[in-house]
């Protein structure tokens, strides 16, 4: 729920790139054991329904990416996507 609030602030034009990058982080991550199975199942359901670029999908991806690849995710938000407010909100959540 908290992540859903955070992603509401992401401009729509950045949804696709954010989603794509987060999926890449998750699939390449060696820290698979940090992924809660409930969250993994949510992501898979959303992927099946084609909703990983919606607010709900992005919230699940962001939550998982912060758990598995925190550093890379913060770098993506702060530097590549220049989503400084989002990065700040995520830091406060952690």
């Amino acid at each position, binding site marked *: 729920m908290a992540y859903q609030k955070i992603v509401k602030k992401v401009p729509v034009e950045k949804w696709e790139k954010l989603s794509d990058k987060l999926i890449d982080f998750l699939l390449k991550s060696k820290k698979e054991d940090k992924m809660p199975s409930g969250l993994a199942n949510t*992501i898979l359901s959303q992927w*099946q329904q084609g909703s990983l670029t919606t607010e709900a999908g992005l919230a699940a991806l962001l939550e998982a990416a912060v758990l598995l690849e925190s550093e890379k995710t913060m770098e993506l938000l702060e530097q590549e996507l220049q989503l400084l407010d989002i990065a700040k909100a995520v830091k406060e959540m952690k």
Partner: protein
Amino acid sequence: MVLGMVRFGIEFVPREAYWKTIYYAIQAEKRGFDNLWITDHYNNRNVYVTLTATAMYTKKIVFGPGVTNPYLVNPVVTAQSIVSLNELAPGRVVLGIGAGDKTTLDFVGVEMEKPLTSVVETIEIFRRMMEGKSVTFEGEVFKTKGTKFNFKTKEKIPVYVGAQGPKMLETAGKIGDGVLINASHPKDVDYAVDCIKRGVSEAGKNLADVDITAYTSFSVHENLEKAKEAAVPVVAFITAGSPNVVLERHEIDLKKADKIRGALKTGDFGQAFGSVSPEMIQAFSVCGTPDMCIEQINRLLKAGISQFVVGSPIGPNVRKSIDLISEKIIPHFKK
């Protein structure tokens, strides 16, 4: 054969967390693959757990173990697992069965006893149980005494036989609905199809009745060097595991293959991978840019395959490679 009729399959080895494999499975379905195969090795995630998740998260892709074996899973349990899966995904399940991998079986201390007979008997038990009958079977390897499911079975489930040697290939042609050949080169497919034809003819069937499936080691990328780089480790293992007769068929220097075997045994992967030659990549993988892969797939189709399976490594980045295959390769064959 009509080239446009080829089916595209994809193979996943469930060595990563289940959610990664299932992510790719969903992606494969969305991107137009027809079949999905999950390998069965005791040291990876369980094949039926992975297939169950596949059934739950997909709607139309056809899937099955590629392949299971009669040594680690009793034929009756294989039949039970496959029929139960088919209840979850009616009409989408196939059974891939082969003799197994000797190296893996050695680890478990299981003898690969009478591989041909074991596979034939497993298929016999499987088919009879699928018919819902009480099965009493007196085989050389397996025996059952009135085994029967306590539930109704649905439609006939196709059986694909994983085959390498001439006798298994011939038998696969005779009794299989499909044959899974570990081959990426037309020379190997030519050889296999000749053997399959003998079995098909003995059974009085047509070759078109059997789905001849090439399980390839595949690597695609827009940049050839990146595609090759991803293929090298898999090709090193295939080269090391290939009998001399296969290496000679591809004019591969036996000494070079020995060098790779030795390096892999001692864990010197740098040496092993560094010894992989362009000839080895050509013989044991379908590798390159999308256009190069199309050309190689066309050659395999001409050699007689009806299903092309994209197997490990798929590419340097599995997700991007699946997209690339979907955008640039599959449409070429499914216009």
